[in-house]
């Protein structure tokens, strides 16, 4: 079963490309892309149970800690796309991993929960408590999501790093992408989805 953000990723990928999926979970996305778009690739995953699911799902998975980077395994420009869906926020050094993504891949695709969504803003504003939502169900003390950001934050980091955004969309909790979301994605989007590449001369 694919998540809605993963469905969109499937629409953004060229058939037959080489793919690396960081934090591949049970391997559902990679399996889907292998079956429908004839892609080749690997998934990286740290969690024991998810590694087992990935193996059972028939994908090629490398058990590995993303916080240790990708240099143990991959040369520069080894992939067409490096994907990371709903994982960025759980990484120790997201900025460094972004660099790694664009070192080993031509393009990166990232999805993350948008902390700038109106629901989280309202909870913080009126209750003064760390927001707990459907997309972010954990409490502050037990959440794996240690580096939450907003659409505006992510785009600022991209500008700072010389990363060119090629495609962007946001979806709400009903997983729709209505026109309204395009007007104020940072306020109305619950999950943000980006495809990007490195600008030349920004190595």
């Amino acid at each position, binding site marked *: 079963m694919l998540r809605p953000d993963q469905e969109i990723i499937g629409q953004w990928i060229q058939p037959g490309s080489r793919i690396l999926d960081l934090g591949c979970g049970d391997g559902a996305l990679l399996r889907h892309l292998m079956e429908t778009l004839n892609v*080749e690739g*690997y998934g990286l995953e740290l969690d*024991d149970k998810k*590694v*087992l699911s*990935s*193996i*059972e799902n*028939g*994908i*090629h*998975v*490398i*058990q*590995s800690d993303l916080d240790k980077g990708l240099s*143990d*395994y*991959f*040369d520069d420009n*080894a992939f067409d796309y490096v994907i990371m869906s709903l994982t960025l926020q759980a990484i120790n050094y997201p900025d460094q991993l972004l660099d790694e993504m664009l070192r080993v891949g031509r393009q990166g695709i990232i999805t993350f929960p948008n902390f700038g969504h109106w629901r989280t803003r309202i909870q913080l504003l009126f209750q003064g408590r760390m927001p707990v939502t459907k997309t972010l169900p954990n409490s502050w003390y037990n959440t794996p999501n240690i580096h939450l950001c907003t659409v505006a934050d992510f785009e600022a980091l991209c500008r700072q790093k010389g990363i060119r955004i090629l495609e962007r969309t946001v979806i709400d909790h009903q997983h729709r992408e209505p026109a309204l979301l395009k007007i104020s994605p940072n306020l109305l989007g619950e999950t943000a989805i980006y495809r990007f590449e490195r600008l030349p001369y920004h190595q």
Partner: protein
Amino acid sequence: MAEQIPTDSVGLITPQTLHFDQPLELECGVVLPTYDLVYESYGKLNREADNAILICHALSGNHHAAGYHSMEDRKPGWWDVAIGPGKPIDTNRFFVVCLNNLGGCDGSTGPTSPNPENGKPYGPDFPFVTVSDWVNSQARLADRLMIHQWAAVVGASLGGMQTLQWSISFPDRIRHAIVIAAASKLTAQNIAFNEVARQAIRTDPDFHQGRYLEHHVLPERGLRLARMLGHITYLSDESMGAKFGRELREGEIHYDYGVEFQVESYLRYQADAFVGKFDANTYLLMTKALDYFDPAAAHDNDLTAALQQVTAQFCVLSFTSDWRFSPKRSKELVRGLLNNNIRVSYAEIEAHQGHDAFLMKIPHYLNIFSGYMGRIQTSGENR
């Protein structure tokens, strides 16, 4: 053993021996004119002969990987946790072959076999055999068993090295390679341990330059020391601590050199069990084969280049507490495979048992192993 054979066992097994007359040219330059290979098989070869699995044994292993030889056997074969109906190497699906390697001491031609030149045991005159030589002899065995291509070759430790060599030597004869707790070469520390073991054997006064059988003695002290040393390195500090700690066998210190600590008792027991059944010259040969293995050496130490011809899919497994063949060594292999765009999966199994973990009933390890084996396709199945 128990009155009944467990239902997930391959049952009672009779080893088979095949004689080979076609001379085998070894890497060291010597030609072995004829030789025997003893092997066991479990499960049934299907009509297309595409469900065959080769098991490669490690340093002190042999062909008896699973099941029992008789109802009196106290223990099943050495990898019974992994081979049998419903186990990772499922004998309901696969035809499984395991042989004793050349140079061994359990039935295949080796140092204890008669040298055709003089009728005496080969002893130290048995030629040096390498991992490549073993793989070549295993390919001859496959020919005789009418197996053109293994669905998978599976091995741990030195067995993993043979598995890797299969993928390099015979890319079209292996579809999957399962390499467990292994490495593409030994480290200096690892060679050093082997050298201490060899020195223990070779300096035993009963060694007689390897001709101990002609003198009707065995270099028992040396072989015991070699085995004790080996055992220390196959376990982890943590697992030894958990198993023995500083526990005293008789509850008090005696101020003598008898067995005082439980760990001493364990080591002596392991040494005793080994001496009666393993040949010292075989031990020397096997450790040398380990030391020499380094497929990258012929390619300017470039493992990626050494793996260029490989087409098999790989499953590489390592254990967190294994310091003899650490996860780092497995990762080097994975890197070399990835550089060649080979389809590989790698799992680092959390286990405190050290190198020996590959022999143990560790649920996550066996689940991963099963999960991968389940992906291997054979004819006549819908998977």
